[in-house]
């Protein structure tokens, strides 16, 4: 392995690891698991770099997709092992709002200007839409499961997800080209 290749991985890591770790922590709610997700994410990126096509999406979206899949697999495996009680206990101390940065007091320090703006923009989303998106994205729940969790009709959940994500897209686009993507 040449120094240049290590630098490539190092550059990707320095740029995305804090955000990926925050996301993984949000999903797994356990530091050790979140770190495992980050390690696995970069390992998979390394293995599958040849399949990455710049024309089909950003590096950030690629890494995030890998990390989310890994994290959800991990919590599903944990659930199968009957550790749901631990997760539920952790959940009671975790704020429901995405923008609150539950993972660490350092989150506010580490957040880039752009991520702060994104968090601010997300506050514009109605709570019902934001919660539906968070349950889908961070908890990996199906639409039926979200409907059951929120005691809402399935059609209402579908609409909230669709409208919420579209509004989020408009808000993020309004911020202009970003550092993340």
């Amino acid at each position, binding site marked *: 392995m040449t120094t240049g290749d290590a630098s490539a991985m190092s550059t990707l890591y320095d740029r995305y690891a804090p955000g990926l770790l*925050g996301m993984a922590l949000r999903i797994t709610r356990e530091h050790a698991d979140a770190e495992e997700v980050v390690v696995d994410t970069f390992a998979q990126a390394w293995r599958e770099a040849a399949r990455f096509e710049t024309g089909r999406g950003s590096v950030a979206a690629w890494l*995030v997709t890998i990390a989310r899949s890994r994290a959800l697999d991990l919590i599903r495996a944990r659930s199968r092992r009957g550790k749901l009680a631990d997760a539920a206990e952790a959940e009671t101390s975790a704020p429901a709002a995405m923008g609150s940065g539950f993972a660490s007091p350092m989150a506010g320090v*580490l957040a880039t200007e752009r991520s702060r703006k994104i968090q601010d923009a997300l506050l514009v989303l109605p709570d019902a839409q934001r919660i539906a998106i968070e349950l889908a994205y961070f908890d990996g729940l199906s639409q039926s499961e979200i409907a059951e969790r929120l005691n809402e009709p399935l059609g209402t959940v579908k609409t909230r997800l669709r409208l919420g994500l579209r509004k989020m897209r408009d808000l993020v686009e309004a911020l202009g080209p970003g550092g993340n993507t």
Partner: protein
Amino acid sequence: MSNLPNDPMVELVEEYVLGMLEGAELATFEARLTTDPALARRVQESRATLADFALSTPVAVPSHLKERVMAHAVRIAEAPAPLVVTPVTPIRAPRPSRTPIWLGLGLAASLAFVAIQSRDLVREREATAAAQALATRTAATLAERDSLLARLIDPGVELVTLASTGAAKPTVRVYLNQSRKSALLTIASLDAAPAGKVYQLWFIVDGAPVPSVTFQTDALGRALIEGVVLPAGAVAASAVTMEPTGGSTAPTTPILFVGAVKAE
């Protein structure tokens, strides 16, 4: 075209990027994606939005994590030399306010805006270059895979799938090459052994268990162990038990998985 307001495919973009489409609906959507650039662009935009959303709460990264990530990459590439990490300064410069404080400084603000856009472009190019550099290293990984594949499809290889003796349904497969006295072990969906314990592979020769390698699974329950040396004599079966760290010379716990080698 997918940009028509009532296109049913457009209505499914959000569900698709959230991974909520299944079955025929998913197949139809993905088929349409291959022929509809406007729909593909919309999917790409939604994924970028979710990436922004997902990455918007960065946290402090422990110093040991980067070492683990880099070491893992080295293991994958099976590089013989220890990795030397070139320090890279993180780019964390805050973006200045979009609104100029002094109207008289409009020109300066414009220049600053151009500089910010350029910096974002540079960042994106750096990230893309980094990803493409990784791609070049994949060739070496693929060569390793070719070598592994060659070992697996050797005419002398026979596959032994070890059946679980418990309720769980992990997959343990042993690729035996008796003529070369070597084996390769793949494990899937097997929970990691608890602290102080490891899994141990056994070969049954002349009716007695002969100890082989110990192993542990990763967070996803997987493991791949290459270069397992077969004991002398004809291997009649393989088995897996859970043993104390370091392994045992004779099984100390019940057999978890066992599979017989087909008679010649």
